[in-house]
């Protein structure tokens, strides 16, 4: 529980009231669950949803102060399954919508769910600039390397040669690497990678992104059982093809996890050069926190979002502006000549 709930004050509630409030403000998983997800059985989105609902419960995030914002695609149905506020917007634009929400309301916890088509293709311009703005958002890139909702077209992160409905003879281009791209943007402050089939690490990575003050960008490799059932199978079957990143400043691996995934690297998340090298590696798949710099300023703080305004402040500001353009009639106004003679 945050201390504020039990901090003594002039109007401190009685011990009984405290207990009641503690009881009231304790949240269960059901407090964040809404509806039955309409994702396919085995879809990686389910694992992400579970991790996020656990995180909300563990952090006791008030549902009314929490907003999930998404674009369009399978992953972007995410907000519908959270019993918080949500905005299921338009293709590619989740990030600028979330930025507007955060700027207007820095008090809200703002999460973004976006897919590889949504973020890396139609919304790519916003992705680059969102990293640059570094607003306090938790961004989950659900990357299944395929367009799912529109029925199997190649996405920018599809591997070269992938046969899809728009690339029947195999895709033509090398895949875009969202990690190296994000790490190349000035002002990047947090980049991590997770996979849907290691739920504890997925949880830890999203949690670290949430606790980071700035844009916590998490790419989550997720399986699409409908269109690419075999894509990640070799990695799922062979734990040595996952490389876990750990560090005192990053993730601490549980003994169980460390025992299964023996390919590991102690990587300091402040080391941007090494982060970029790790990000370029495809096999084994790096999982963990690649980069974390807590000192990058957040745009909403730079811009003093949430500044207090009063009608008086607006009136005074407006009158001061009017004064600049005013012609006063003779004998009226601050200067009888009507001109700022000073």
């Amino acid at each position, binding site marked *: 529980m945050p201390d504020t709930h039990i901090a003594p004050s002039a109007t401190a509630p009685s011990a009984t009231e405290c207990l009641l409030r503690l009881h009231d403000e304790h949240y269960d998983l059901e407090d964040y669950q*809404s*509806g039955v997800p309409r994702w396919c059985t085995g879809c990686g989105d389910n694992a992400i949803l579970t991790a996020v609902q656990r995180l909300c419960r563990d952090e006791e995030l*008030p*549902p*009314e*102060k929490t*907003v*999930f*914002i998404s674009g*369009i695609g399978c992953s972007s149905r995410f907000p*519908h399954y*959270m019993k918080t*506020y*949500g*905005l*299921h*917007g*338009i293709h590619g*634009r989740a*990030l*600028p*919508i*979330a*930025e*507007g*929400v*955060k*700027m*207007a*309301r820095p*008090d*809200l916890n703002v999460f973004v769910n976006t897919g590889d088509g949504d973020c890396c293709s139609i919304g790519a*311009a*916003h992705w*680059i*600039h969102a990293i640059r703005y570094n607003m306090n958002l938790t961004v989950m890139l659900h990357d299944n390397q395929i367009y799912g909702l529109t029925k199997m077209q190649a996405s920018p992160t599809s591997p070269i040669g992938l046969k899809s409905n728009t690339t029947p003879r195999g895709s033509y281009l090398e895949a875009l690497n969202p990690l190296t791209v994000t790490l190349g943007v000035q002002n990047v402050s947090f980049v991590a990678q997770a996979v849907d089939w290691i739920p504890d690490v997925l949880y830890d990575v999203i949690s670290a992104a949430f606790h980071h003050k700035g844009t916590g960008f998490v790419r989550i490799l997720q399986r699409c059982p409908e269109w690419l059932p075999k894509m990640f199978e070799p990695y799922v079957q062979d734990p040595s093809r996952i490389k876990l990143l750990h560090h005192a400043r990053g993730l601490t691996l549980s003994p169980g996890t460390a025992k299964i995934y023996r390919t590991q690297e102690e990587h300091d998340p402040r080391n941007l050069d090494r982060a970029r090298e790790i990000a370029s590696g495809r096999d084994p798949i790096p999982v963990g926190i690649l980069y974390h710099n807590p000192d990058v300023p957040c745009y909403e703080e730079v*811009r*003093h979002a949430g*500044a*207090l*305004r009063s*009608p008086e*402040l*607006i*009136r005074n*500001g*407006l*009158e*001061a*502006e*009017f004064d600049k*353009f*005013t*012609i*006063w*009639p*003779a004998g009226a106004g601050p200067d009888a*000549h009507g*001109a700022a*003679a000073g």
Partner: protein
Amino acid sequence: MNDVTLLTRPQAQDKTVTTLTEHIVEIVSDSGEGAQRCGQSMGAIAARTGYGVWTVEIIPAEIRPPARSVAGASGNRIRFGSRRITNGGNETDLVIAFNEQVLLGRVRAGELKPGATILLESMWREDRNKAIAASYAEVYEQVVAAGYDVHEVPMERECKTIVSDPRRGKNMFALGMLCNIYSLDMQLAADQVALTFGKKDRKVVETNIRLLEAGAAWAEQNLTFKYRIPATPATEPLIVVNGNAALALGVLASGMEVCAMYPITPATSASHYLSDVFERVGGIVHQAEDEIAACAFALGASYANKCAVTITSGPGYSLKQEGIGLAVMGEIPLVVINVQRGGPSTGQPTKVEQGDLLAAMFGSHGDAPKVVMAAGTIEDCFYSVITARKIAETFNMVVVLLTDAALASSQQPIPRPQFRETWLAPPADQSAVPTDTRPYNWDPVTGLARRIIPGQPGGMHTLTGLAHDGQSHVAYDAEINQQSISARSHKLAALQKTLLPPPVFGPASGEMLVVGWGSTRGAIEEAVEGLRNEGRTVSSMHLTFLQPMAPGIKQIMAGFKQVMTIEGNWCDSMDDPLIDDSNRRYTALAMLLRARYLVDVDCWCEVKGQPIKPALIRAAILRKLQTQ
């Protein structure tokens, strides 16, 4: 410092002083020679004198067009007179040109009145470059032969006695000539120069006042004419602003807190000004990475708090359409300001056109009802933003406010607004939502629903751009889309019921009703009034609300034998041999009026990128009256 003794200096022989009711003056130069500043100062002095004033910027398309080019004219046009002035008027009476090429540009554009007075920088006659000297002589002969009253003025030579670089001083010399020609108060002029250069050091101010006085003295000694225009000093405080500054002040006054934008001509100056002042009242201007993001950012801010605004022009408006559709679907209040310019595509970025009305009304795919308003005056630019924010939040709708390049860069003194707290948005509602409140609790009659804002306990739901039911759940039921479209549509009808019939300018019946919208208001009313003074029974009606249209319009039109719109968007001419009743494209408003009211509304348009002149409107009305 303010030398008034110059009035006793020698005068030109046989000076004639003519009394006028108004005049139009232009100062044109190459870009960067200060003609715009001269014109702005002249406008300010005229306003302080007590004249009605309307100034228009003459802006070349490029930042630095080639020197001495016909298309490079940069400057200002000032119409001032004894009466209130509502538009830029007809042709220019007097022009000061810093070279013959920019003058030629104005002559070719048809902007000069026959026989207009021209004060032309004469230094080019002696230019070392023979081609330049020849070109000057040729144009000089041409304009003299065309009957203009041309006076060569050695501006550069005169200024050189005061400053080493006359390029940086000619404009104040020109201002001094104007002050003398129009018998303006030199003290007032000096005060204005001090105000203009006030941020710089005293020396700069003094030098410019000397240039001002030198210009006045030269005119006094060398020109044989002078004008007097009676002035009525203001009795109430006025503010002199252009339409874009008025928009920005309106954003401040409306209590909005976020403006998201992307640079685009001619809208940007509103955001420039807002960027300078918004933070002082706790607001934020966000320059987004593109127009789409600007719209999405404003929409996000609005969803989470109070209504936000995005300001743009044609191409940017096109890019925002998808975001506007989401705001319509999710019933998120949003104000979108479109400062129209010439289109389609990149079109004419610095020029005026009224080509976006239908895009504003019907843009965004599917049935996307939104409110469309148009500002008809500079004063409207201010108040319309306040109204737009209120409508957006009351009806949870997108309100598109149309202005244009003419309003954006024209200045006029308007009564100083009296601040009212009711202009402001109330704080965002953060109270608990009663259990079982549906996020879209559509009223079966009006379609209105209470808006729930993040932070309100018990109101959690996911807003979606998918078709949805009252719970904001994705619609899988066949009936739901029908219901929700009906609810969103009804809001327009509900708003329409609150509107008053538009006022008619002139008697309620007669030969013709002229209908307009947007920046043409002043010119239309001037033309109509002139015709009425000559005994023609012509009235006009100017629409502020284009969607929904106010009640009573059909009844108003019924009082007239003919109805014709005057617009700055295209219509085919019936004189064209290819055009007949079955293929004619009407102007936007004419088409809408014909479709809605089944009235045979005719239209007349001009799309030359310039504000439509009252004389042209008058001619179009007379022609239409004669053909019937």
